[in-house]
């Protein structure tokens, strides 16, 4: 059957691809139309319409102020993400390898994931004060646990035969980790990085939304407070655009990692 399929694949694939592209275009138009509708129906009080937003955005991108804020967010985010990723990876590996510790820790981590972390924000502020370190703390608070859980899961689901092979080849623990464990877990690790990325960004933005004078989160809330609707809408658009772009990129990378290991 597969011979038949391979011989005849090209026509069917492009026709399906064309339908998908068409549907995607229709969807994009629908979203824009909805955006426009909400914008004009509320007379720009809640959301500014697409075209106006785009124009404003281009203007905004040329201001020093915008990039200053963007840099603040970016710095906090990069540090938070790096910390979440590295600590999460390390913890995940430890909890995955040391089974009992993993069994003890997992419900605690899973439990932490489900609580409204926003209720802990005042504590973070009290401990770190207002500023960059608080923002980074928020980001890590959101991004660390998912990374740990994904890595833990990946190590746990590793086929035991791989570890046995490493032992038979007399690999040192370090090499086992670097040459066997991490490559084998790569798809899930990349997935964890993807989730951690979004959540670290979320944490940093929320932190900025109510406890900072700099950053895109602040810009958003400030825009609302000053009734500068085009500004807030533009900032939202930037954040959505960056998030989706980064997510799609990481999905592709993850896809490649999965294909290689399968």
């Amino acid at each position, binding site marked *: *059957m*597969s*011979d*038949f*399929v391979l*011989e*005849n694949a090209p*026509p*069917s694939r492009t026709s399906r691809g064309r339908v998908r592209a068409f549907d995607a275009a229709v969807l994009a138009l629908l979203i824009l139309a909805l955006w426009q509708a909400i914008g004009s129906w509320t007379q720009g009080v809640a959301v500014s319409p697409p075209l106006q937003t785009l124009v404003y955005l281009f203007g905004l991108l040329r201001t020093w102020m915008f990039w200053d804020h963007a840099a603040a967010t970016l710095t906090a985010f990069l540090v938070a993400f790096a910390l979440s990723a590295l600590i999460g990876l390390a913890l995940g590996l430890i909890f995955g390898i040391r089974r009992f510790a993993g069994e003890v820790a997992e419900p605690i981590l899973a439990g932490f994931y489900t609580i409204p972390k926003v209720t802990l924000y005042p504590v973070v502020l009290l401990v770190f004060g207002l500023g960059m370190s608080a923002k980074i703390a928020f980001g890590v608070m959101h991004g660390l646990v998912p990374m740990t859980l994904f890595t833990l899961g990946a190590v746990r689901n590793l086929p035991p035969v791989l570890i046995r092979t490493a032992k038979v080849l007399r690999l040192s623990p370090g090499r086992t980790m670097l040459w066997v464990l991490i490559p084998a877990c790569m798809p899930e690790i990349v997935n964890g990085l993807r989730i951690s990325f979004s959540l670290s960004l979320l944490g940093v933005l929320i932190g900025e939304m109510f406890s900072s004078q700099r950053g895109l989160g602040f810009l958003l809330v400030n825009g609302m407070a000053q009734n500068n609707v085009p500004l807030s809408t533009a900032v939202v658009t930037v954040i959505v655009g960056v998030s989706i772009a980064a997510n799609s990129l990481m999905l592709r990378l993850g896809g490649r990692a999965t294909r290689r290991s399968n």
Partner: protein
Amino acid sequence: MSAAAVSAQSHIALGGVERHYDGPPAIHALGPIDLEIGRGEFFSVVGPSGCGKSTLLDVLCGLVRPTRGSVRFEGRELHGEIPDGIGVVFQEDASMPWLNVRQNVAFGLRTSGLQQKEVAERVDHAVHFMGLAQFAGHYPAQLSGGMRQRVCIARTLVLRPRLILLDEPFGALDQQTRLLMGDELLRLWRETGATVLLITHALDEAAMLSDRVGVMSARPGRFIDIMETGWPRDRDSRIVSDPKFGGLTARLWSSLREESLKSMGQAA
């Protein structure tokens, strides 16, 4: 032969049955098939992989309509509905993981409209018949593959089907279990008086269990040989020691070998 004569003789009859798939790519999966199976007969189908054995079963029970030709069950032609009186045991595990053994077996009777008492009686009988009495309260996940298949067979039994179709039901089992399950199947066949059609890839199993064995060609599957075994009704797996057995199996293989090579070349 007139239609009346045909239906008088056969329990289920296929006339010129073909099955095509439109694709792309277009596939001629089955046929043309002409086959008559008599009431109470034990008929096995063997053939190389991919030859359309499962499609044949789907056509026989009405799950799939033939592209061409007709299927007559108990004299009436099937028009794409599944008639009453046919029981099917699939190749894959069709036990329902959320029900225990007894509930699984009773599932078949949920729409029957029978009284609770009668349902319980039939379920008990089927559970005992298939040797599952000890495990009546267990869940499928706690049972071995062979036991799960027995649950599926018991579930078919409670319906008191007149025709039982089995698609490689013992495929996942080891040889010893298969032989024992074969004996079980023969016992079931004798005690229910049902017509049995068994699809299997094991030639010895077909040769041992059946009244007749149909050998299918590589895709598109057609019958290239229908072999009579001539076994007495009262038989079991010990028949392997009968000198005739070797010859029967050998005949099946000689018909099948070339078709199997062809099918290997066809890939999946």
